[in-house]
C-alpha cells in the first residue's frame, strides 16, 4: 500500500511494452488493399462469407502499400496486396518484394494480364477517359473534349483537374500514355502548356477530380472510366464521359502475394477466389471491367474494345517511373 502510487505508475507505463508482445494466434488473412474502404469491404465481405476465412485489411493508396511492404520486407505483416495499378506491382516485383504465384483460373490469363514470372496478375481493367460537367459545357457552349489537344482549348482555361502524377496511379498512367505517344520531350512540352493554361489544381488521389467535375469546381477531370462511372455518372452528378480519339492508355488492376507474408496458403486461396466468375461479377457494382470472359460487364460500362486504346506498355511504364517522374517535376516544378 505504501508504494501503491509508484507501483501503479510503473504498471501504467510498462503496460505498453507488455501488450506489445501479446500477438494474436488465430488464423487470419492480412491484406493490404488499394481499393477505397467501402469497395474493399464489399469484395472482402463476400470472400469471408463464401470461404469462412477471416480477413483483416488495411486500406492504403498503392504508393503507400509499396512503401509499407518495402519497409516491412524483413518482417512482412500482410500476405496479399489487393488492387492498385499494376505499375506499382511491377515496381514491387523489380525490388523482389513479391512471391510469384500462378492462380488457378477457369480461363487463360494472357501476357498483358500477368508478369512473366507470375509475380503479379491482373484482375480488372479500365481506360483513361475525360469526365466533364454538362452544365458548364452548355454554359461555355463547347463540346466535351474528344482529343488530348481539346484539353488546351481556351474554354477550359483553369478548368481541368487531375491528380499529381507522382501520387496517383491514374495520373501516372495518363502521363505515361502521353510519353508513349509523343516521346518524353514532346510530352513534357505539351504538359507545360497544359499545366499553365488549363490545370486548375492537382489532387492527391486519382478519383478526386471526378466529384470536382460533378460539383462544377472544374469543367473537366481526367480519370479511369470505371471510376468516372461509379463515382460520377452513377452517383447522379451531371457529368458525361468521353475518350481521346488519338487513343488512350489503360490500367490493369494488380493482385500479388507478398514475399514472406504470414499466411501464404490463405493468400493463395484469396487470389484464386478473385478470378472466379462470382467474384468477377461483383465488379458490376463499381463498373470495373472483369478479366474473366465469363463474367458479366456492368450496365453502362464500356469494354476495352469499344475505346481506341494505344498499345500501352505497362512494364516499361512501371520500370521507368522514377525517371519520368523526376523529369516531370523538374519541368513542371510542382
Amino acid at each position, binding site marked *: 500500500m505504501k508504494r501503491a502510487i509508484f507501483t501503479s505508475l510503473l504498471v501504467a507505463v*510498462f503496460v505498453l511494452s507488455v501488450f506489445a508482445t501479446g500477438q494474436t494466434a488465430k488464423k487470419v488473412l492480412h491484406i493490404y488493399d488499394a481499393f477505397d474502404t467501402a469497395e474493399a469491404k464489399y469484395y472482402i465481405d463476400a470472400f469471408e462469407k463464401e470461404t469462412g476465412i477471416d480477413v483483416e485489411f*488495411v*486500406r492504403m493508396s498503392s504508393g503507400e502499400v509499396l512503401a509499407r511492404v518495402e519497409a516491412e520486407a524483413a518482417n512482412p505483416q500482410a500476405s496479399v496486396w489487393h488492387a492498385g495499378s499494376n505499375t506499382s506491382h511491377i515496381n514491387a516485383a523489380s525490388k523482389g518484394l513479391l512471391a510469384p504465384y500462378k492462380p488457378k483460373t477457369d480461363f487463360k490469363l494472357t501476357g498483358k494480364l500477368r508478369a512473366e514470372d507470375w509475380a503479379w496478375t491482373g484482375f480488372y481493367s479500365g481506360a483513361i477517359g475525360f469526365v466533364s460537367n454538362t452544365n458548364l459545357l452548355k454554359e461555355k457552349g463547347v463540346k466535351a473534349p474528344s482529343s488530348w489537344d481539346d484539353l488546351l482549348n481556351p474554354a477550359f482555361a483553369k478548368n481541368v483537374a487531375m491528380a499529381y502524377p507522382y501520387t496517383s496511379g491514374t495520373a501516372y498512367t495518363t502521363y505515361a500514355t502521353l510519353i508513349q505517344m509523343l516521346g518524353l520531350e514532346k510530352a513534357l512540352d505539351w504538359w507545360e502548356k497544359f499545366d499553365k493554361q488549363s490545370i486548375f489544381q492537382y489532387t492527391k488521389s486519382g478519383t478526386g477530380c471526378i466529384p470536382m467535375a460533378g460539383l462544377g469546381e472544374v469543367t473537366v477531370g481526367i480519370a479511369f472510366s470505371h471510376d468516372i462511372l461509379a463515382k460520377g455518372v452513377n452517383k447522379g452528378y451531371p457529368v458525361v464521359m468521353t475518350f481521346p480519339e488519338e487513343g488512350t492508355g489503360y490500367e490493369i488492376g494488380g493482385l500479388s502475394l507478398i514475399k514472406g507474408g504470414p499466411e501464404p496458403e490463405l493468400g493463395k486461396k484469396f487470389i484464386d477466389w478473385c478470378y472466379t466468375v462470382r467474384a468477377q461479377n461483383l465488379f458490376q457494382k463499381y463498373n470495373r471491367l472483369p478479366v474473366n470472359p465469363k463474367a458479366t460487364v456492368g450496365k453502362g460500362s464500356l469494354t476495352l474494345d469499344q475505346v481506341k486504346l494505344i498499345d500501352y506498355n505497362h512494364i516499361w511504364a512501371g520500370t521507368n517511373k522514377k525517371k519520368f517522374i523526376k523529369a516531370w517535376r523538374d519541368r513542371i516544378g510542382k
Partner: protein
Amino acid sequence: MIKPGRKRQEIIGNLRLICKEPLLLVSILAIFYFLLTFVVSPIYMVIKTSLIVDKQFDLSNYLAIFSKRYYFQPFLNSMILGICTASTGTLLGFAFAYAITRTPIPFKRFFRLTATFPIISPPFVVALAAILLFGRSGSLTPIVKIIIGEYSIYGLGGLVLVETIAYGPIAFLVLYGVLQAIDPALEEAAMDLGASRAKVFSTVTVPLAIPGIASAWLLVFIESMADFGNPMIISGDFRVLSVQAFLQITGMYDLSRGSTLAILLLTPTVTAFFLQKYWVARKSYVTVTGRPTGATIKGLEWYVKLPAYATCLLFTAIIFLFYGMVIYGSFQKLWGVDATLTLKNYVEMFQVGKDYIFDSLTLSTLATPITGIVGMFVAFLVIRKKFIGRGLMEFVSMLTFAVPGTVVGIGYILAFNQRSVLFPFVLTGTAWIITTLLIFRNMPVGIRSGIAALQQIDPSIEEASTDLGADSNKTFRKITLPMIAPAFFSGLAFSFVKAMTAISAIIFVVSGRWNLITVAILGFVDNSQYAQAAAMSLLLISIVLVALGIIQVMVGRIGKGARTVSIVG
C-alpha cells in the same frame, strides 16, 4: 557564482538523497527511458534517414531541396502562411481578449465559449465548412462573387482564413490570461494623469502585453506551420511542407527525401518554440499581486468599444455560420447537386464508419489517463525534486509540442517498423503505435497542467508532511495528489480532445485494423463526399462534448471550486 567545490557537494548531496529512495531513482530512469524511446529516437530516425542515401552518408537530399523549386517553394509557402496566420490570429485574439477583459461587453461567458469552440473541434472542420460555404459551388459563393468578383477559396487566402479561425482562439487564450493579469488600475492611473486613450493604449496596455503578444504570435505560427488537415483540404496549388512531406512518402514511397522535407519543417517550429519558451516568456512583466484583477475600465470611448465589439460579434457570427453550415451540409442528399434533406449520410456514416468511431474512442480512452498520470508525475519530479538531468527531462518532454505532427509520424514509422536496441518489438500496424504516439504527443498538456497545479501548492505543506515522517510516496499520495486533482482532470479533458482530433502524426501510423475517425473524414473529403464528412465531423464533435461534460461532472465531485488551467502558452 557557485564555487565548483560547493557545486560538487550539492550534486553529491542530491545523489545521496536519490539513493535513499530507490523507487524514485527507478521511476526517474524509467521516465528517461520512455522519453528516449518514444520522443527522442523517432526524431533522431528522421534526421538520420534524411542524411542517408543508399546506406551511405549523403547530403544530396539537402542539396536537392535547395536547388529544386518544387521543394523550396513549399518551404517559402509554409513560412508565408505561418507569418500571415500568426499575425491575423494574434490580432483577432488580442481584440477579442481586450473586449472581454477591458470593456463592459455583455454576455462575456458566451463570447468566451464560442471563441474557444474551434479548439475542441478537429481543426480541419473549418476548412470543410469553408468549402461548403465558399467553394466553387458553395452556398454563399454567388453572393460573395457579386461583392468581390471572381475568387478561389483554394490557396493562400482561404488557408489564412480557415487557420485564423482554427488557431486564433489559441492567441485569444494566451492574451486573455495576459490581459487579465495586467492590473487595469495602471491604465486608469495613466488616464487620471491626463493621457489620452490612444496614448494609454500605446504606451501602457500594449507594452505590458508585448511578451504575451509575442508568445501568442509564436504559438500560432507553430500551429499554422505544422497544420496538416486544413492545407490537405483547401490549399489547392499552394503547396505547403507538411502536405508535401506526406505526399513524398505516401505517393512516391521516398522516405529519405520525405524526412528531409520534415526536417525543413521542424527547424522553424523548434526555433519559434525556443524563442517563446526561453526568451519571450522570461520577459513577462506580469506580476501576480494577489489582488483580484480583470476589472473593466469605465467610460470607454466609442472608438475603442466599436472595433472590439465588432470583432467579438463578427467572429462569433463566423463560428455560428461555419459550424451551422457543417450541420446543414450533413443532411443534404448529394452535396452541391441535390440539396434534398435526408438522413442517408448518417446511415452510410455508421455503416462505413462504426469501426473508426470504436477505434478512436478506444485508443483515446486508453491513452488519456496514461498521458495524465505520466504528465503529472513528470511535473512533480521537475518542480519538486532535485536530480541530475531535471532540466533535460523537462525540455525533452515539452519538445513534442514544437515538433510538427508530420515529423513525429514519419519518425514513428521509421523507429517502430523494426526491432531496435531500445525497443525490441515491432509496433507498426498495431494499436500500440497509435496509443503511444497519442500519449507522448499530448504529454506537454499533462505536464503543463501538472506544473500549473503544483505551482499553486506551497512546498512548505509538503515539507511539513516530510518533517512529520512521511516519505516521498506518502506525501505525494496524501498531500500533493488530492490538491492537484482538479488541474489533473482538466489536463485529462484536454488531452482527450487532442487525441480524438489528432490527424497530422496519426495519418502515418493508422492501419486497416486500427483506423481513426479523423483519417476517415479526410478520406471522405478527398472524394468530395462533403455531406458524409460533415456528418462524421459532427459526430466527432458530439463525442468530444459528451466526454468533456463527463469530466466536468467528475471534477465537480472531486474538487469543489476546481479551477481550470490554462492549457496553452
